[in-house]
């Protein structure tokens, strides 16, 4: 069993929390669970970063932002992109999920429920505007690789749903 708990030096948490996902700015890289390791060795910060989706263009931006944030705190850094173990939406922190919802993106359901919502059209995803679960999927692919597009049948507003990735 590979450990899924990231190894992050407590001294770095304050800095890493300042770096956010460029497409979902309410989420820090820690909320997103993409930092798998952040340690200080020989005065250099070594970071292992894992992509959410393979083609996610946010990864390049996040790398640059991380370097910059660390530099402002007088740290040199080395960032390595790691693929294994592969990122899953389970790594979104509970705080991150709450922030997503407040921002207007419904957080991912568990794997089984996600399938029911996306494939079988079951009405279980909660509308981020009016909290109704009377919602339907409009498109399994949304404005970014990680999202699907939903519509609420009560308030009629569209909203994004963060797809479950396992």
């Amino acid at each position, binding site marked *: 069993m590979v450990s899924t708990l990231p190894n992050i030096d407590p001294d770095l948490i304050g800095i890493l929390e300042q770096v956010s996902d460029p497409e979902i700015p309410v989420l820090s890289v820690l909320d997103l669970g993409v930092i798998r390791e952040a340690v200080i060795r020989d005065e250099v910060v070594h970071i292992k970063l894992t992509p959410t*989706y*393979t*083609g996610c263009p946010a990864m390049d931006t996040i790398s640059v932002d991380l370097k910059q944030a660390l530099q402002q705190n007088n740290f040199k850094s080395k960032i390595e992109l790691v*693929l294994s173990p*592969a990122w899953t939406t389970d790594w979104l922190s509970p705080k991150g999920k709450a922030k997503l919802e407040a921002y207007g993106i419904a957080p991912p359901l568990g794997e089984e429920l996600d399938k029911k919502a996306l494939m079988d059209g079951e009405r279980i995803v909660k509308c981020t505007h009016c909290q109704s679960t009377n919602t339907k999927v409009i*498109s*399994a692919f949304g404005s970014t690789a990680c999202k699907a597009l939903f519509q609420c049948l009560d308030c009629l507003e569209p909203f994004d749903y963060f*797809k479950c990735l396992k």
Partner: protein
Amino acid sequence: MDQNLYNYLLMLGDNSMILGHRLSELCGHGPSLETDIALTNISLDLFGQVRNIFQYAAKLNDQESSEDSIAFLRNERQHYNCILVEQPNTDFAHVILRQYLFDQFQLLQLNFLLQSKDEQLKAIAAKSIKETKYHIRFSSEWCKRLGQGTEISHNKITTALELLYPFCNEFFETTEVEKEMMERGIGPNLEELRVQYFDNVTTLLNEAGLSIPQTPFRVSGGKHGRHSEHLGYILAEFQYMQKTYPNMQW
């Protein structure tokens, strides 16, 4: 350098890259907003997978090549994708069917690579397969919708099937490189995948109310660098910036 593994990576990557490019041509031209976004999302995933594969290939090559040079500086004969993926976006039925025929193969292939003896390939497969599962959901649902839809949609996907189905055999024609990868436990036994593939495809096509074309399998050769004329046009566009402004970066 492990030349055979390097060539195998090019084979894997070229399929995703050329199909990814074909789908990117639809950006802003999809038949509806939702399908437009879906197809370009799939394109983005495919390019993400290619980057992982080519970055690994560049590393094997002691960085004498880079992911960009592998992608942008090879000519037609140095590409090893199957001929199916370079076929044009004739209409939505062709786009969907080409996608399904590829997704089905890719899913079986990645499923094997999850147990590959090559650790990096295993990691790339674990990452990619999650995305491919979304792709095949999309493409197979649309195959059924077109097949069982109106007379027009049924006829269009039937025409696409007659053109594209005969290309599918090429996925399973084992080259020397693939034979070695199989023997080393890195790549799959394509003969085994073939049986599973045609079983799954037949089931889906039947569900979609379509019959398997009786036309013989088409000429192949993509995996040896021999392509249809479409590839040259694709590369002319795909590589334009790098060839006009060498070493340019965004």
